[in-house]
């Protein structure tokens, strides 16, 4: 485990098994002070488990989880932490301000009610009962509860899943503001777009294993593949000679080309085969991006994936 002065939270060699599945397998990650760390992965990758471990909601099967140098299962160790988790139902008979005031009371130096309401875009709504709110407003209240304690470290577990665009952008904007103030944010998401918009550093989880780690630009370069499909008389071996092409395959009667730079590849294709037809260009889906990362991960770290 490499840890240094700036590590505010970490998992060290953590394995977590539930009855039937292994949610995390020998995962080590350090959250550094002041960064926005995105934990990216498809559903069931172990993202939520990683957050639950760091919040002390569950204990590691083996390995160690720490926040600010303490076991997160100790309630006072969470005094500088805020969390926004996925929740199916929140008590509906409390008003927004009552929910916020209750959570403010848990912290030593909370934000004022007013600044919490402003940060979450809930001004003027403080007297409304939670049960009377729309989905986006409810999510804003959960965000308000996460930040009202003025935390130094904030965990956001899929904060924008299923949200309207305005609430999503409000939350993004607030996350950026928190980072500017020197806070640390750990964000789980399965939106590549969200990682791109916000994160300094990305950890990609798949099947409970870290398959890639790097800056958001690095991860993007590895996943931002586009797909060209066409009918052409060119053979795959010829197309592979174009420098920007990363892979070629033949599917039914069509040729499928993957590349991160579509335009120069297309130019070359038309020069070599002016009769090229049935052209189609698409972004690879996130699913495909993950598959690609997982494959690459396999080559880089075979024992980690198969362990």
């Amino acid at each position, binding site marked *: 485990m490499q840890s240094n002065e700036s590590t505010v939270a970490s998992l060290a060699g953590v394995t977590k098994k*539930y*009855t039937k599945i292994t949610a995390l397998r020998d995962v080590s990650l350090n959250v550094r002070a002041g960064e926005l760390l995105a934990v990216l992965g498809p559903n069931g990758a172990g993202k939520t488990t990683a957050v639950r471990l760091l919040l002390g909601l569950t204990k590691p099967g083996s390995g160690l989880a720490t926040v600010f*140098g303490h076991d997160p299962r100790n*309630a*006072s160790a969470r005094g500088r932490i805020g969390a926004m988790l996925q*929740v199916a139902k*929140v008590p509906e008979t409390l008003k927004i301000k009552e929910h916020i005031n209750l959570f403010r*009371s848990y912290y030593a130096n909370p934000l004022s009610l007013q600044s919490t309401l402003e940060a979450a875009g809930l001004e003027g709504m403080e007297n409304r*009962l939670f049960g009377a709110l729309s989905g986006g407003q409810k999510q804003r209240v959960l965000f308000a509860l996460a930040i009202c304690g003025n935390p130094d470290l904030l965990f956001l577990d899929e904060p924008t899943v299923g949200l309207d665009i305005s609430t999503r952008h409000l939350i993004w904007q607030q996350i950026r503001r928190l980072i500017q103030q020197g806070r640390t944010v750990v964000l789980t998401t399965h939106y590549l777009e969200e990682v791109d918009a916000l994160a300094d550093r990305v950890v990609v989880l798949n099947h409970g294993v870290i398959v890639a780690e790097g800056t958001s630009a690095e991860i993007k370069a590895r996943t931002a593949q586009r797909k060209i499909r066409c009918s052409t008389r060119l053979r795959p071996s010829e197309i592979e000679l174009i420098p920007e092409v990363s892979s070629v395959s033949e599917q039914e009667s069509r040729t499928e080309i993957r590349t991160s730079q579509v335009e120069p590849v297309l130019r070359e294709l038309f020069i070599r085969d002016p009769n090229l037809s049935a052209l189609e260009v698409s972004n690879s889906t996130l699913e495909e991006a993950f598959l690609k990362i997982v494959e690459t991960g396999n080559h880089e770290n075979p024992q980690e994936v198969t362990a």
Partner: protein
Amino acid sequence: MSSYAAEIPRFSAGRAWRVYSTEAKYELLKTLRQPAYVIPTLTFPLLFYVMFGVAFGGRQAIGPVSLATYLLATYSTVGVMGASLFGFGAGVAMERGYGWLQVKRASPMPPLAYLVGKTFMSIIFSAIIVTSLLILGTLFGGVHISIIAFLKLLGTMIVGAIPFCALGLAIGCYAAPNAAPAVVNVLFLPMSFCSGLWLPLQLLPKFLQHAAPYLPAYHLGQLGLKQVGFGEAGGSLPHVAALAGFTVVFLLLALRGFSRDDVKVNA
């Protein structure tokens, strides 16, 4: 890393008081706005007391006291059980099952504050029920008990709510949110009947009279009856000990159910 350790804020006594009292205040407020809890919890024991304790033969004697006085103690027990079992059982099952408890546990809330808040709420409801029963009994049922006896009854019921809060908590830690109210009903009605709370135990079949001491409601009922002058042979101590024992068992069950969650979530 040790530099961070020193910065963890500590709970001072004043802050702890603020956390606990805020939790209790909002728990009460939240519950008062739920008619599905408030109306049955309050009207159920009062309605039955009016029917059996006041309207029909409340003045007939049962042992040293009138039936209305006897039922004042036992319906108080029924009311306390209902408030505690439904408040904890259904409340905890919902908040746990739908993920809200997890949000609270992820905050720096001291875990005990959650339990203290809900216990406080159950006690307030219990006190309202006991006081209302006394008013009904005194005005319409010919009940005469001293202020001291009433305060002793009230105190007994307030402390006596705790084992039922613990039982409710245990139910809340096992039952699915939708199933919890049914589970509580299945326990609540037979247990209160078999403990001699609806009808005096003497009128029940012999085997039920023998079975009653195995039920926590029986012991609270007996303690309540002592306060209104329906003294049985033997002191209070065996009943208090039995209730304390039940509380420990229920809390251990709850703890077991709660840690089982760790396995279930996300699996």
